[in-house]
Each structure stands twice: as C-alpha cells, then as structure tokens.
C-alpha cells in the first residue's frame, strides 16, 4: 500500500531510539554544532606511527575544519599542533607529509621547531614594547594519544583517551601489538554525503546484501549471521570474529597463509570507534577507515591498508593484492558503499524522506541495528539533542 504525503512524513510509530531524523545529515546549523561540540571534543585517528618513522617526519590533515600537523619531534616524541602560524594564521606546512627540522611560514618567515616552539621572528625589533616575541609565539599544541602505534588527536585540552575509549581497542591488541605494522596503502576520496552516513556503513551491516563479494565470501562463511555485537561505553563496538570463504569468488584463493598476528585462516574482525573510525581485518591485511566532514553533504573519506613492516616483497605483494580486491579504488567492495551512500544522500537532500530506520532487533547479532542505536546515544550526549527530532520543523519537536 502506498502512503500519502502526510503519512510519508509522519513520525514513525517506533521507540525513539529506532529512527533518526534525516535532518541530522543535512542541516547546516546541526553540522556546525557537530563540528564544535562533537568532532572537536572526541578522539580523531590522525595517522599510524609508520607514516612518521623518523625524527622530523610530519603528516598534515584537516580535523573538523582545523588544520593539524602531526610530527615526530627531534626528541622522538610524537606531537600535534594546529598547523597555523602564530602571526596571522597562515598554514605553515602545506604538503601532506614530509621531513623538516624547522617549519618556516612562507608569508612572513616566522619559524618553529618540531616541538612547536617559535625559534625566529623576522625583524623582531619592530615588535619592541608590544610583548610579541618568539618566546611567547609557540604553536597551539593539540592533545595526542598513541596506542598500538595508532596516533589519535583531540582538540580539547583536558580530554582523556582512556576515559573516552576505555577498553574498546582490546580486539586489536594482538594484531597491532605483536609485530610492527606499517601503512602500505593510502587513498582518499570526496563522498557526496554526510560523514555519519559513511560511518554507518560499518555499523549497519544489514546493507551487506548490497555487496556481491560479501554475499559470497561472508554470508557463505561460518556463522556470519550469528556473530554478536559487543558494545563498549562511548559508542564503540566490535563484532565477534568469523571465518570467511574467499575462494567462493571466481579466481580468488582462500586466505590461509601469513595471517596478521592473532588471526586464524580466513578470519575477519571489525572494530568501530566513535565517532568516525573503523578497523577491518581480513586475515592478511588491515584497513583503517576514517572520515572528515567538509560540509553536511561532503565528506573526505580516507583509507589505509596495513601489512607487516619489513616483510618480504612476496608477502607484501600478497597483502596488497588481498587489500585491493576489497578496498582499493578499483576494488570490488568499497565503491559499492560509496555509491549506496550517495544514492541515499541524493534523496534526503531533496527532501525525499524524513526518517532513517534503525529498528532491526536480532538479539544483538550481526544484522541487529544495536551498534547504530548505541552510536546515536553517544551522539546525542555530545550534541545535547535527540537524533530523532527534526531540526527545521519546530512543530515536530
């Protein structure tokens, strides 16, 4: 039976936890609030330590609209700063990565060391008597937390990684903590959709019927539907591991050999961190998926692939091949998620629907929407508003 316009937009007759307003993906005011109240107060995965292995190495990134530089300082410590000159806020390091002992702003040549200290101000005599001097012109330092060689940053001065993340990384301890891993793959793309829609693709697994290879490899594996979500405080979660059957795709071999530390043959694991990062492990290779909002309907999605540092060319080639089968820009799986999210975004941006339903209840098994519901519980805590209330229609609130 079809529905009238009123029926289509009527509030769902469901528990409030089981649906969200489409406005949380489209509303500009909500987006700004998210940037300030949520993204800048939560832990952002910035890079893996293998991306900055030697003193002076740096990576730059955008975090909720704030330019960031992450570096391995001359004393070996990893630090992060706002990548903005103390003088007039010019971006200091414009490359995505590099190595430098000193960072000189191109505009007026104020210079900083890798500890963020200002070491030189051009023609300082002109500031005499103003209080402006290199001693009080250091960069704005950003909190860092390094766990299992993962570098996280937080723009809140007093944030506590252990309080916010707790034990949520425990499922990665054997994988990332036994041998040194390194990033061998990186690509990014702009997604025409809201950043939360992308993250939902790692929490709402009901959509996996979309993927040809998942239908064969995962759903044809052992116990796909019976896996249980384990929810951690703070909107994080993980699924019980399972063994997948890669040989069910024409021309693919089962992944029996050289698994990452702690993994068994064919084993798949995934771990979701609030608010925007997911770790997916397919036996031989690990993907780190994170995103950065650009606007309500534009998101920078970043993908990293990891293998074992120092391994043979032959082993690396095998891991790279396995990675690219699923997750490369010409792989079988990743682009289908992006296409689906963009199709969803196109409809809600045109006011094609008011509500997203997360009402599946299967005793916390894989296709239960429990992970999304827990995610939005945490989202609501930061946003101090409900996800199911429409933003632009006060009468509905």
């Amino acid at each position: 039976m079809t529905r009238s316009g009123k029926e289509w937009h009527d509030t769902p007759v469901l528990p409030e936890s089981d649906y969200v307003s489409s406005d949380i993906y489209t509303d500009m005011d909500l987006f700004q609030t998210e940037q300030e109240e949520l993204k800048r107060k939560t832990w952002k995965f910035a890079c893996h330590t293998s991306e900055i292995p030697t003193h002076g190495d740096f990576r730059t990134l955008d975090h909720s609209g704030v330019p960031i530089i992450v570096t391995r300082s001359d004393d070996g410590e990893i630090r992060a700063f706002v990548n903005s000159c103390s003088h007039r806020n010019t971006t200091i390091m414009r490359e995505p990565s590099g190595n430098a002992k000193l960072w000189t702003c191109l505009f007026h040549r104020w210079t900083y060391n890798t500890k963020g200290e200002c070491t030189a101000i051009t023609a300082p005599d002109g500031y005499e008597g103003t209080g402006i001097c290199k001693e009080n012109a250091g960069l704005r330092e950003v909190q860092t937390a390094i766990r299992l060689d993962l570098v996280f940053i937080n723009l809140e001065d007093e944030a506590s990684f252990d309080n916010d993340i707790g034990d949520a990384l425990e499922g990665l301890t054997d994988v990332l903590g036994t041998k040194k891993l390194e990033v061998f793959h990186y690509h990014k793309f702009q997604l025409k959709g809201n950043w939360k829609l992308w993250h939902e693709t790692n929490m709402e697994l009901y959509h996996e019927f979309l993927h040809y290879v998942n239908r064969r490899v995962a759903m044809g594996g052992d116990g796909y539907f019976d896996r249980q979500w384990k929810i951690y405080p703070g909107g994080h979660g993980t699924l019980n591991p399972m063994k997948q059957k890669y040989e069910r795709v024409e021309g693919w071999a089962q992944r029996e050999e050289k698994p990452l530390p702690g993994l068994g043959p064919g084993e798949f694991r995934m771990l979701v961190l609030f608010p925007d990062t997911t770790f997916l492990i397919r036996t031989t290779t690990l993907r780190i998926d994170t995103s950065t909002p650009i606007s309500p309907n534009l998101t920078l999605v970043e993908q990293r692939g990891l293998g074992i540092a120092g391994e043979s060319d032959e082993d690396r080639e095998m891991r790279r091949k396995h990675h690219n089968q699923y997750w490369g820009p010409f792989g079988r799986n990743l682009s289908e998620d992006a296409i689906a999210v963009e199709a969803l975004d196109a409809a809600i941006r045109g006011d094609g629907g008011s509500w997203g339903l997360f009402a599946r209840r299967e005793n916390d098994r894989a296709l239960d929407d429990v992970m999304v519901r827990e995610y939005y519980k945490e989202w609501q805590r930061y946003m101090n508003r409900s996800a199911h209330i429409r933003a632009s229609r006060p009468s509905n609130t």
Partner: protein
Amino acid sequence: MDNVRGLVESVIFQSCLLLDEERFDDYIALWVPDGHYRITTWSPDLRRELVFLDLGLRDFQNLLEGVNNHQRMLGQFSRHVTGQLIDIDGKDQINVTSSLLVTHTDLEGISKLFAVGRYLDEIELVDGKPLIGSREVRLSTRQFGPGSHIPI
C-alpha cells in the same frame, strides 16, 4: 616500420574503445596470454609508490567478467590517448608511452574528468600482429569519487 607504428597505435586505441564499450572478451583478445596489468601512482601522503591493481591476465579477466555482479557508477567512461612515444627496438617488443585522460559521462549527460595519467605499454609482435604484453596505468589522479569496478 610506419605500418608497425600504425598497427601499434591502432591496438592501443582499440583497447580504449573496447573498454569504453565494456566489450571485455574483445578487449582481452588484444592481450598476450601471459599479459600483465597494473595501476600505479606516487603517494605524496606516504611518500611511497602505490599499487592499486596488479593482475596477471587470468585474474584481470576474472575481474572483468565479474563487473556486472556489482553496483557501479552509472554512466560511461571514455578513455582518450594522445601523444604516443613509440620505441621500436628492432625486435619483437615495442615500448609505448601514451598520455591518458579518462572522462565519465553520467546519465544526465554531464561529463567530468575522472583521471589523468599515462599508459606505459609493452607491445609484442605475435606473427606480425601487435598484442599488449603489459600495461602500467601510471596515474596522476589519486581521487576517484566512489571508485570504479572497471579498470582504466
């Protein structure tokens, strides 16, 4: 020799048209049986080489045969090669460098640039007929929107 150059240009051009038209069997027929296909780029993010695809012909063929199993970007890709440098060493192998642009036209008729790069081809003369022995698609572009199930 001019005839060989013409045949080489033709096989590369055909490879573009056949992939554009998704005539995968005819496309594979342009290759030698032990052909090799790669997509590579340099990453300024990692400061290292990246390999996006690295396939022997059999795996390449499997990938192409599986394309229709997937949800894909709607519309059509169009591959444009120009400015070929053809290095004929006097034997049976010819190295060819071609500038490459790939456009995508969606179902609304809007065309956008999808990728910029080069084809680095090794062409083999088999019974006087040029076939693709290996192709490295060397890309400058590193962002591809949702990505593509069809190689470049």
